[in-house]
C-alpha cells in the first residue's frame, strides 16, 4: 500500500503541476497592459501606480497605491499577494461605493489580463513572492433563524463590536481612530447597509473573516474562528439587511468567478 502511494503520489503531483502550469500560462502582457492602463487607469492611479493620479484628490476612498502589492480583495490568506484572477475580478465587478467602476464590458478578458500584468510591475514583491494557496471555503449551510441567532453570539464572542459597533453600524469604540497602511483614516463597514464591496454572497463574506483585508485594520480570524462559527456569523450579518442574498436552501457555493451574464 505504502509503495503504491509512493508511486501514485508523484504522478498526481506532476499532474497537478501540469494543470497549474496550463492555467498559469494564461497571463497578460505588461507592455500591452501599459497601453490599457494609460487609457483607463492612469487618471486615478497615477503614472507611477502610486494612487496619485490627476483625479486622486477627488475620490473617497483614495485610489489604490499599487507599489506595495497590498490588496484587500483576495482569495488568499492574510498578508499574501493576490492572484491574477483576484485582480481581474476587481476590474470585472468594480468596487461598490467607490470610484472604481466595472470595466467588464470596456475591456475584454485578454486586455484585463494585460493590465493586471502591468499593475503588478509597480510592486517588486511580485518578482520575489507568490500568492499563497487560496483560502478553503467549506460548503455553506442553509441560512436559518437558528444560524442567525448563533451568529449574533459569534459576533459577541469575537468582539466584532470593538470596531463595527453593537448594532454593526460601524460605530464601535475603536471606529474613530483607524488608519490604513498609508496613514489614511479608514472607517469600519456599516454592515447594516446591505452591500459589501467584495460581494454580498456567503462565500465572499466568509472569505473576509479568514483572509482579513490587507492594508486595513480588518484582521484575519483564520486561527480563531471555526467554519461553523464563521457561517453563523455570515448569516447574522446577512440578517441585518434585506438586500443581502441569502442561501435559504443550503445550495452549493457558487464559484467565485461565476458572474451573471
Amino acid at each position: 500500500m505504502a509503495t503504491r502511494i509512493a508511486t501514485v503520489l508523484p504522478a498526481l503531483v506532476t499532474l497537478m503541476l501540469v494543470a497549474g502550469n496550463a492555467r498559469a500560462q494564461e497571463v497578460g502582457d505588461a507592455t500591452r497592459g501599459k497601453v490599457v492602463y494609460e487609457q483607463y487607469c492612469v487618471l486615478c492611479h497615477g503614472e507611477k501606480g502610486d494612487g496619485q493620479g490627476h483625479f486622486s484628490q477627488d475620490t473617497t476612498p483614495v485610489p489604490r497605491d499599487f507599489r506595495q502589492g497590498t490588496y484587500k480583495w483576495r482569495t488568499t490568506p492574510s498578508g499574501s499577494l493576490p492572484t491574477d484572477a483576484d485582480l481581474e475580478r476587481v476590474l470585472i465587478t468594480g468596487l461598490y461605493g467607490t470610484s472604481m467602476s466595472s470595466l467588464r464590458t470596456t475591456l475584454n478578458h485578454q486586455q484585463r489580463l494585460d493590465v493586471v500584468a502591468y499593475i503588478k510591475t509597480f510592486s517588486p514583491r511580485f518578482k520575489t513572492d507568490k500568492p499563497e494557496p487560496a483560502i478553503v471555503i467549506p460548503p455553506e449551510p442553509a441560512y436559518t433563524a437558528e444560524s442567525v441567532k448563533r451568529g449574533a453570539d459569534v459576533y459577541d464572542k469575537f468582539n466584532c463590536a470593538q470596531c463595527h459597533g453593537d448594532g454593526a453600524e460601524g460605530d464601535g469604540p475603536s471606529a474613530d481612530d483607524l488608519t490604513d497602511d498609508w496613514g489614511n483614516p479608514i472607517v469600519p463597514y456599516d454592515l447594516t447597509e446591505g452591500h459589501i464591496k467584495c460581494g454580498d454572497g456567503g462565500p465572499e463574506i466568509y472569505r473576509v473573516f479568514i483572509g482579513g483585508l490587507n492594508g486595513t485594520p480588518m484582521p484575519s480570524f483564520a486561527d480563531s474562528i471555526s467554519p461553523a462559527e464563521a457561517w453563523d456569523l455570515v448569516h447574522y450579518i446577512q440578517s441585518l439587511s434585506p438586500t443581502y442574498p441569502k442561501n435559504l436552501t443550503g445550495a452549493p457555493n457558487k464559484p467565485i468567478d461565476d458572474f451573471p451574464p
Partner: protein
Amino acid sequence: MRLIGNRIKGGIVIEFAAGPYLPKACRKPRLLARTAAVVSGTLLLSQLALADSYTVIPVTNGGTIQGTVKLAGPTPTIAPIVVTKNQDYCGESIPNPVYVVGKDGGVQNVEVYLKDITKGKALPTDPVAISLVNTHCMFKPRVQAATVGQQITISSEDPVLHNTHPQNAETNATIYNIALPYKGFSVTKPLPATPELIKVKCDAHEWMRAWIWEFDQPYFATTGDDGKFTIKDVPPGTYTLVAWQEAAGEKSVSVTVAAGKTVTADIQLQPK
C-alpha cells in the same frame, strides 16, 4: 530610518516535518514557510545557508563587545497615553514607554547590532518562537530581535479584542494582520523570510506599539532595564556598532575587537 541593506538571496534550506515532498532548496522561502506552517502545523528551519550577505565560519577565540546605552541629555518628558477605548479594562491612562531610563541612566529597549558583518558564528538553529504578548492593552516586550527563519507566538491576556498587525517599518506594508478576539488566544506564525525592521500595531488600540528587529546574522542584543548589552563570539576585526532606539533613532560607533578580549563601547543617544 535606515534598514539593513542586505537581503538573503535564496539558499535557505527548509526541511519539513510532514515529509520530503517539497523542494529542499527553494527561492520562495516566505511562501513555502507559510504553506508548511499551514500544512504541517510545525516548521523546522534546521539549517540556514546564508548566501552573499552572511557566511558562517568557526569562531573559536572571538571577542566580546559590551557597553551601556545612555541619553546625551535629560530624558524627554512624554505625556502618558490617554486611553480612549475599553477604559473599564485598560484604565484611563498608561505611562508612555517610549523612553525607559534606569536609575543609572541606562536606556532600555535599545537594539544594538553589528552592521554589515559578513562572517561569524552560526545563527541559532533553535526553532523556538519569539513571543509577543498583548497584556493590559500594551505589547510585551516593546523591542526584541529575532533571526530569519524564526517564528513568533502572538497571544492575548486581555478580555478585549486586539489585533496584531506587523508592518514593514519603512513602507508600512502589512506583513499580516491577526485577530486576537478573546483572552487566552495564542497563535504561532512565521516571521518574514527577509530581514527587516518590523513595526507592530494594534489597530483596535492605536497606542499599542512594538518593534521587532529581524536579522540575518547573530550579533545583536536588546538592552535591559540597566541599558547594558553584551555581544559575544565576535571574530577579531573592526566593525560598525549601531544602537537604535524607536524615538532617538540610530547612532553608529566604530569598535575594534581583539581575539579573546572584551571591549567596552558605551553609546550616547541624542534624545528627540
